[in-house]
């Protein structure tokens, strides 16, 4: 039991580290105005040097690397805080779906440009009435000659405003039960009738969009999978979701609380001297370390050629709530200083407290995560689905 690379891994890591040292730009990350240009330039640099999409086949711009090699490169790359966000969904979710369902011409046309960062993709699945019930989507597609005509609305689409292409699930037959009348496409985001509107979050940021479709025409050859078989195609996409999206606590971690408790006084003594504070901090440390070492165990499984299981769902569940609690704790320690938002340094806690609810929901709420663990890890029965087998247009929706 150790934290060490195997010989092969160590050699690969050294190679990756050397290349990154020589080539990684010195940049501030995602929070600059030109981050998309920077991200594209960096992706192109990786592509040209053979460090893009490592686990993909070489013919589409990859390197045929093992999963653990891909993880090693990602870990090394992460030290540089480079903007890689715009490609996560395209490379992590759209690409596996295209590999499984697109034609050879389409794969040759789209995958290399995805690998090189020339084209950015987004994912158009969630809808306002859907939420956790993802398959209850209503965006309609109707066949019209060689095209399909799409009307409806999607929501929570990251990067829609700068994406070139999108993957899209639609309802082609509302008279069939929920999972059976869906059809899956990819489309050009600049098609006529596509409108993107940013969503403002509590924190004031806009990380997501609404996307409206008004008589948008999609050629039938951009359909992935059979008509009515969209749910199965979507599952291919979703199986890759947890690999593609992050989660976790962001800036509010144990160290944040530990540092603040060393600075703030309670009754004339640093807060950290108080056993109650120490106990609370120790709880957080144990959870944070527990997640970190769970990650190490997952990576060990990769190293052995095994596939880490759905137990990784615990990460977001634990970290998101903990980040909210740590932010709240820090604000309470600071009192009115903690709720004031005038100074960048001091408003970090309040900003984190405003951002935390989003982390507890985006990518699957706490309740969904618990269901996943209960059903997929522990093998407990699924919830009763009253809509099972019911024609979609007869399922109760609460609409008056």
């Amino acid at each position: 039991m150790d934290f060490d690379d195997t010989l092969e891994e160590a050699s690969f890591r050294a190679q990756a580290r050397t290349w990154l040292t020589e080539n990684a730009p010195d940049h501030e990350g995602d929070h600059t105005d030109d981050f998309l240009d920077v991200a594209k330039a960096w992706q192109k640099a990786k592509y040209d040097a053979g460090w893009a999409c490592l686990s993909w086949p070489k013919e589409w711009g990859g390197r045929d690397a093992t999963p653990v090699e891909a993880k090693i490169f990602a870990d090394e790359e992460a030290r540089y805080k480079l903007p890689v966000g715009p490609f996560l969904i395209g490379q992590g979710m759209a690409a596996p779906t295209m590999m499984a369902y697109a034609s050879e011409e389409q794969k040759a046309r789209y995958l290399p440009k995805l690998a090189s960062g020339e084209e950015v993709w987004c994912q158009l699945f969630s809808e306002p009435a859907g939420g956790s019930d993802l398959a209850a989507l209503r965006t309609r597609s109707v066949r019209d000659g060689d095209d399909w005509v799409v009307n409806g609305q999607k929501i929570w689409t990251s990067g829609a405003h700068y994406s070139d292409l999108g993957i899209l699930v639609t309802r082609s037959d509302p008279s069939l039960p929920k999972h059976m009348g869906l059809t899956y496409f990819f489309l050009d985001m600049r098609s006529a009738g596509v409108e993107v509107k940013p969503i403002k979050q509590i924190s004031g940021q806009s990380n997501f969009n609404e996307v409206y479709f008004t008589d948008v025409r999609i050629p039938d050859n951009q359909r992935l999978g059979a008509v009515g078989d969209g749910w199965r195609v979507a599952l291919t996409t979703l199986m890759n979701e947890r690999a593609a999206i992050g989660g976790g606590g962001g800036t509010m971690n144990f160290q944040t609380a530990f540092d603040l408790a060393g600075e703030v006084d309670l009754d004339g003594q640093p807060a950290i001297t108080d056993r109650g504070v120490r106990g609370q901090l120790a709880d957080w440390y144990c959870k944070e370390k527990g997640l970190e070492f769970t990650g190490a165990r997952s990576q060990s499984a990769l190293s052995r050629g095994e596939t880490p299981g759905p137990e990784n769902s615990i990460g977001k569940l634990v970290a998101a709530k903990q980040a909210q609690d740590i932010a709240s704790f820090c604000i309470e320690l600071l009192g009115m200083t903690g709720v004031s938002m005038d100074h960048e340094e001091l408003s970090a806690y309040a900003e984190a407290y405003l951002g935390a609810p989003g982390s507890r929901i985006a990518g699957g709420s706490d309740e969904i995560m618990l269901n996943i663990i209960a059903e997929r890890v522990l093998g407990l029965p699924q919830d009763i689905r009253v809509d099972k087998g019911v024609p979609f247009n007869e399922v109760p929706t609460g609409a008056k």
Partner: protein
Amino acid sequence: MNFEFSAEQNLLREQAVGFLSDRAPLSVARRVLDGDETHASDVWQEIVNLGWTATAVPESHGGFGFGHLELCVLAEELGRSLAPVPFSSSVYLATEAVAGADSLVRDDWLPRLAVGEVIGCVALYEVTGAPKPDRMKGCTVTDGRLSGRKRWITDGDIADMAVVAARDAVTGDLGLYAVDLGSDGVGRFTVETIDPTRNHADLSFDNVPASPLMTSTGEAGGLRRLLDRAAVLFAFEQLGGAEASLNMARDYALGRYAFGRPIAGYQAIKHKLARMYVAIQLARSNCYYGAWALATDAPELPLAAATARVSASQAYRECTEENIQIHGGMGFTWEFDCHLFYRRAKLLSVNLGGEYDWKHQLISCIEADQAA
């Protein structure tokens, strides 16, 4: 046993609910959140016209002479509506501080506060941490003139007068002083907080006339008493907000369908809502304890205030966090109203000192009781 509000008090509540739902629905709080107003001056003027600011002021000073239970009723409803008005600063704090003062200063300010001619606030904070005497060293009074700086004053951006905790430059005693904020030498610096529906400012004083509100003995006790009394009213605001959050969550869960049925039917959501209800019931009962102690000026006030305050802060936090959670994706959008309560909950939790300090006071009260 009559541990409930009276029929008359509940009538006042009905009137308050009617007025606030008509004139101060959440859209008013949102107007202030999204716009440039410091507060809803229109709603405030109507509240003044209704005489709410005069509720507990003696008739001798232009008030209605009701007890503090009526203020508790109004506090709960104001907390529920999130009305962006300076009621807590002007009524629970400034008016209360002035009402307990020597007659000359009281006679000067109290009638004007009662009829809403002036808006009052209380200036306590100078540094990080709860507003305790040992953290108040930077404001001094020499020959009736105040100098120094106070921070994070709720309604400090709009108040006409402030009650300032400051030290006598000679004796070092801490006292409360009334200051006309229209005086020369007063500086205001707007401060942004997590809850933009309530305005905040830092205030600086450069040789500004200040009238003592309390005699020099027992001033720290006077501050403590002011905070304890206000804490009960703040707790009622928190209670109202918590219950509004529960109701909002419940209504959403009943109307939102997933997998063909309302999400309110899933045990994860049912039990979450039930736990919110439990937290609110406990907080409500403890708030009534605080109300009783406030209204009867019972010796238990410090303990009752702490009990009410801790319960209400906890309930409000739980209910606002879980209200967002139950709303799912919609819950963390700016467009939905969940975050208005989430922001207010955090502001009220740290104002007058945070949960940790109130818990400390609570146990200290019991230690003192049981040692006696």
